[in-house]
Every structure is written in C-alpha cells, then in structure tokens.
C-alpha cells in the first residue's frame, strides 16, 4: 500500500482551502440576494424570497448607480483601449527617443496607490475649478486603464510575426490595408482581453471614484455610502447578475477558443 505522503497532499489541501477562502464571500453575496426584507439591513438571514430578483431596482438609487457604473465603464474602456493600443504598437514596433521614459510613465500609475492617484486628480480638478461628477470619474478611469491596456496589448504585439505583414506588403497592400486587414485582426484577442480587464477595473473602482465623483454615484460608491445603514438586497442581486453574465462570457470565449484550436489541429 502506498504510504500517505504529507508532501503530496500539501499543495491540493492548501489550494482547496485557498479556493474556499476566495469563494465563501461570493456564495454569501449570492445567498443574501434571496434574503427576505426585514428592516433596512441585509446582514441577518430572515428567510428565502424571490422578491429582490423580481424587482432588482426596488431599492432607491441602486439602479441609477448601477447604470452610471456601466456607462462610465464603457466610455472609459473605449477611450483607454484606443489610446493604449496605439501606444503599445508604438512601443514594440518603433525605436525612438524617450522610449524608456515613456514606458516608465505608463508603468508608474500601476505602482502608485489608488489613494494617491485619487487625491492628485482631485487636487488638480480643485485648482482648475472643474466641478466633480461622472465626467471627472471617466477622466480618472481612462488614466489608470491606459496603463493596463498598454501592458496587455504590448504582449500581443510582441508575439505577432512581422513576416505576415511583410507578405501583405509584398502583395502590394497599402500600409492602411496591412493595418486594417492584417495587424488589427491579429491583435484583436489581446485588445478584447485588455478591454475586458479595463471594464472590470473601472466598474469595480471605488477609491479613485470616491475622490473624483462629487455628488454622482457609481455602484461601488452606492455600497460604500449605504454600508453604514445597511446595503439593500437588490445590490446583491445586481452584483450576482454581473457575476453570472461575466462567467457565461468567459465560458463562451473559452469554448470558442478550444473548438477553434481543435479545428486547426484536425486540419
């Protein structure tokens, strides 16, 4: 009989504990989206109900905040993805003066605590006399999303084989045609990944948002503000919907990838 090995069991056991630790609060959030309303708080289990799911906008402000977060996330993602992709292409494909300075400029926001980024922008808006609101939140989100987009897209650009573009040029494609019909489509998986990351970062950001939103609310800010008196169960419903949607998206993307790889392999 094989001896029980502590070393062999260690990794799976610690890994499983780590996973339970990670997932327990998620289960809690989903479970409490079915909690019956009693008083204002959603901390004690009162009983099972579907009422919150039937009326996810039932609590005041919750859907406004949710909608604001989606809008801010979409607008910031589009701007950050376009600007970041352009920078990533330039950084990998061209040699120019100040190249390392520019890399450092893009890396620094990721190495800066959010509270410093938030306070700096707020100080800047204060000086410029700009009124804080959703507009200033978008300006702030684009700033930190650009860095992550550049990192993600750079890796993809670096893995592109320039010979394919050369082949296009040899076949008399104009620089524009090479870009739109070869370079961009081949970069697409990287760009989509970067956009998803950017949306997730923007959607969940609270610290920078809190410094630059003024009276405007986003979903995380709504939770922060209502934490004191009790977050309504509808917030749990909306959060669960986001999770389910995101997981479905990930699974679809994964299975498309796998079936595509299988197809290529059988060719």
């Amino acid at each position: 009989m094989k001896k029980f090995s502590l070393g062999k069991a260690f990794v799976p056991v610690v890994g499983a504990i780590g996973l339970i630790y990670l997932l327990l609060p998620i289960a809690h959030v989903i479970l409490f989206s079915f909690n019956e309303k009693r008083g204002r708080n959603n901390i004690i289990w009162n009983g099972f109900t579907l009422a919150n799911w039937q009326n996810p906008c039932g609590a005041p402000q919750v859907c406004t905040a949710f909608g604001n977060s989606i809008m801010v996330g979409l607008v910031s993602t589009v701007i950050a993805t376009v600007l970041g992709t352009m920078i990533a292409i330039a950084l990998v494909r061209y040699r120019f003066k100040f190249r390392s300075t520019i890399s450092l400029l893009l890396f620094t926001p990721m190495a800066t605590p959010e509270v410093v980024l938030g306070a700096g922008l707020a100080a800047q808006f204060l000086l410029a006399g700009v009124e804080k609101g959703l507009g200033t939140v978008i300006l702030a989100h684009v700033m930190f999303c650009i860095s992550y987009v550049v990192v993600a897209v750079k890796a993809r650009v670096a893995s592109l084989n320039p010979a394919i573009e050369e082949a296009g040029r040899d076949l008399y494609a104009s620089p524009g045609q090479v870009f739109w019909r070869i370079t961009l489509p081949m970069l697409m998986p990287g760009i989509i990944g970067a956009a998803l990351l950017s949306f997730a970062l923007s959607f969940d950001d609270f610290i920078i948002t809190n410094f630059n939103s003024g009276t405007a609310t986003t979903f995380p800010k709504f939770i922060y503000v209502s934490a004191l008196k009790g977050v309504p169960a509808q917030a749990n419903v909306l959060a669960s919907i986001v999770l389910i949607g995101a997981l479905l998206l990930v699974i679809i993307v994964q299975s498309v990838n796998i079936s595509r790889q299988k197809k290529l392999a059988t060719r």
Partner: protein
Amino acid sequence: MAFTAFSGNTKAVEQHPRRQGWVVLLLLAPGIAYMLLFFVAPFIQLALTALQAPAASGGIGQYVAALEFGNYWTALSEYWPHLVRSFIYALTATIIGLLISYPLAYLIGVKVRSKPMLQGILLILVVAPFFISMLLRTLAWKSILPSELIGTHFSVIFGLVYNFIPFMVLPMFASLQALDLRLLEAGSDLYASPVTTFRRVTLPLSMPGIVSGTLLSFIPMSGDYVVASREFLGGTSTAMIGNVIESNFLQTQNYPMAAALSIMLMVIILIMIATYVRKSGAEDLL
C-alpha cells in the same frame, strides 16, 4: 517589466524596429498627452498642495500657494502611527497572502496542467472574485466573521489578504505555467530531494511571478481605506493612512495635510519597492 506576467505568457517574436518619426508621433501623442494632463500634472499639483498655507480669510478648505514645508512635519508627527500601521498591515497581509497564493498557483499551474478542463475551471474560480464588487465581498466577511473579531487588527489583515489573493495568484500562475516540468524530473534524476528541487529549481524560476504578485498586492494594500474603515472590517484603532488621507481631503478639507501624507506614502513605497527589487535580484524583470 514584472507586471507583464499578469497578462499571461505570450512568446515574443523577433521584431525589426523601424524609425518612422511621424507615425510614432501620431501613435503616441494622444495617449502621452492624456497621461501628462491627468497623471503627471496632478502629481505636481499634489506636491504643490502639500506646501500650501491656510488663506488669510480662514475659511474651511481655503488655502493659498506657499512653501510651507512644515506641513510634512505636522503630518508626520500627527499621523506616524497610521503610516507605520499601514505598512505593518500591508507587509503581514502580503506574507500571509504569499503563503496561501503560492500553493494555489502551483496547484493550477503545475499539478493540474495535464488536465486542461480542470485547470480552466480552477482559473475561472480564481478570477471570479473580480466580477463581484470588492466592497460587497468585504461586507460579506463582516457578516460571516464572528462579531467579536470585527474592528481588530486580525479582521483588517484578514480582509486585506482576502481582497488581493487573485492579484497574487495570477502572476504566480503565469510563471509556474511556463515552468518546464522536465527540469523537475531532471532534478529528481540527479537525486535531489523534492524540497531541494523546489528550492533550487521551481522557486528561482517562479521568482518573476512572486515579485510581481507581491508588488501588485502590497502597493494597493498599503493605500487601501475600504477594509480598515469602520463601516467595513475596521474599528477605531485600525485606521490606515488611506483612511486619514480620505478624511482629510473629503471631510475636513485639509488639502495640504492630505497631499503631504500622499506624497510621503508614495516616497516610502518607492523606497521599499527599490530595496525589495534589488534584494530579490529581480532588477532585470522590471
């Protein structure tokens, strides 16, 4: 750059960099202008705000440009316990997080590598927390943990560790996934014990992931003000530097104080990162 590990491993192809002035300018100008306007300028503004003096009118939130370096001294003498506490919390949480994340990353990147389906599921489970608001998850702990624990050093560190585990696991997974398993076999063929193989082969090869994973969590942890705030897992004696900066800026509107604290936080972090990167021999990773 160490952080590239975060985006997975894509093999670089030999590129032939070209010089084409106007194309580069066209590609870079909008993004760089944006970063100068909304990242560099605010930093300078923060440094200037840290030197402001109260306006003669004396209204709340009224300050004028000055060279009041004493603000730093006031900030330090008043809030040094919060600064020290933040770094102790963040360091402790980073170490505990590393001890939990590394085995998890090893499980996904090495142990189940031969089962892509299982590996995919485990990876999805690790990134799942990204899709549920961090604030809701932190609140969930408030109701899961026994109420006697809330507001203690334990609950704050517990919450910090929790929130940043995915940020640690992903880069470590990326470098462990790239590890050539034949090297481990070679180790055991040469009569190295599993522990020796781990220490001499696996650990050094996964160093890039460890460095970027610990940085990606230590930096945001030290500035975090959600977990330690009283509405979440903190109490009266757990306030971190982020909480102080937030209340000075947004509530009491003492902008110079908030700015001086922010600059100090940033400078201390930069010094710590520089030392850490040098000590871990990972300079070439950045």
